[in-house]
């Protein structure tokens, strides 16, 4: 479980995060949602340590991240996997080389064991056969899956995904969402997903934190979101006619949306 308490961050006098509080639960897909520029990426980057917040607390299973020394941070980071918006795969490495990177750097496995583990991760994301391709030779969706495989190679306790669906077609987006949800439940990981894809929100949002203008305005799950009274949330989530109709249907039939 990750707890964020009273997190504040400003850039050049402009407050981007204003006393944000959130809890990300283990074994659940935790979503941070909000409009572009609302501060959700800063919240995620602060949580993983890529941005230093001005004040507040970040607790990883009770361990205060901001009070840790360099060695403790290094050790904690070995428990973290992260999927970046642009996948952030190493161009000079093949798919299998990318997945093996964290294993080479941190595990005491033999070369054969590392290869076994890398192939297992590759199979887990349904990409067997692409091991010798370079990132530039595979599609965006495949790159995301390779990045997921790399992120889970060291069996992380915490998985962060920054807009995993950006630039993907709806079908591939659903596949990535399902993969992330499956991995979260299968390995009991604390998964935090930063998104503004409403399909993801309504599909895999087991714990949703809505950030608006640097403040967390609403916390709930994908079933509760239909009945939320928060105006900014409703404007954001049900902005399109399609999602508005879905909401009306759900409320009128008084049952959660099935896949």
């Amino acid at each position, binding site marked *: 479980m990750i707890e964020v308490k009273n997190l504040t961050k400003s850039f050049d006098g402009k407050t981007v995060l204003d006393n944000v509080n959130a809890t990300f639960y283990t074994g659940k897909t935790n979503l941070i949602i909000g409009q572009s520029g609302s501060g959700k990426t800063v919240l995620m980057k602060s949580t993983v340590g890529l941005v230093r917040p001005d004040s507040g607390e970040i607790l990883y299973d009770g361990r205060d991240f901001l009070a840790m020394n360099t060695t403790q941070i290094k050790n*904690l*980071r070995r428990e973290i996997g992260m999927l970046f918006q642009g996948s952030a795969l190493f161009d000079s490495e093949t798919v299998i080389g990318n997945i093996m990177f*964290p294993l080479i*750097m941190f595990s005491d496995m033999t070369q054969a064991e590392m290869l076994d583990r890398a192939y297992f991760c590759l199979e887990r994301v349904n990409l067997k056969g692409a091991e010798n391709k370079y990132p530039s030779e595979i599609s965006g969706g495949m790159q995301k899956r390779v990045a997921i495989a790399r992120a889970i190679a060291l069996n992380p306790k915490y998985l*962060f995904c920054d807009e995993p669906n950006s630039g993907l077609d709806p079908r591939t987006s659903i596949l990535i969402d399902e993969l992330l949800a499956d991995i979260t439940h299968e390995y009991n990981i604390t998964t935090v997903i930063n998104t503004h894809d409403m399909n993801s929100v309504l599909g895999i949002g087991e714990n949703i934190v809505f950030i608006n203008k640097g403040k967390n305005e609403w916390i709930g799950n994908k079933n509760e979101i239909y009945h939320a009274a928060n105006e900014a949330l409703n404007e954001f989530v049900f902005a399109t006619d399609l999602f508005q109709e879905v909401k009306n249907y759900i409320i009128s039939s008084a049952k959660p949306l099935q896949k």
Partner: protein
Amino acid sequence: MLLSHSISSFGKYCLFLSRVFNRPNRWNVFLNRTIFEITKLGVDSIQLVIIISLFIGSVIAIQMQLNIASPLIPAYAVGLATRDIVLLEFSNSILCLILAGKVGSSIASEIGTMRVTEQIDAIDIMGVNSANFLVLPKITGFILFMPVLVAFCIATSFLGGFLVAVFTDIISVSRYVYGLQAMFNEWYVWYGFIKSLFFAFIISSVASYFGYYVKGGALEVGKASTNAVVTSSIMILLLDVILTKLLLQ
């Protein structure tokens, strides 16, 4: 304003170097990456060094003959002057200025692209010191291979002058070769090698610094690459003066 910016940048550069010069996570990975960088930054530069040195060596020999042609100056002085110019300045300072363009821009754009595509963030998130992982092998590899490039440069420059002697009638081969050997000061060779090591460090570290701190997109990567070349060239020239004063006087 400019002074405070320069001091601030220098401080940031020093902090960057303190992150670079750390114990690598895995020595075998560091050695593999160093060998890779030697190939990429060093071996791949040999061709350029040979081509440039051959032509500049020829040009120096021709210009020496044209400029010092006098009955009071012995003919072998062309070989001697060519040798000293090559050993003292061309094979180290001028060569490194050229390499600052090739190697420096390559390093800055590679690391800069990794920064803007979040590859460096990905390395950091895994708990790897990205500055150390990416930059130390480049600095080590380039410094280790620089004497080889200097040696190639010296040899091919002399060869360029030699070819002028062979294929033209402006100086005889025997006098050119005699001039290359006359009044030889071995320290000049060491002086060139020592200077080149400092310059190799500047090229690789300054280019890495500019690439590492890129913010933005492709446009900023291009700017960082240009800034890396300009800054390392200025630093090479400045250090050239200091090292010449220290090593030759």
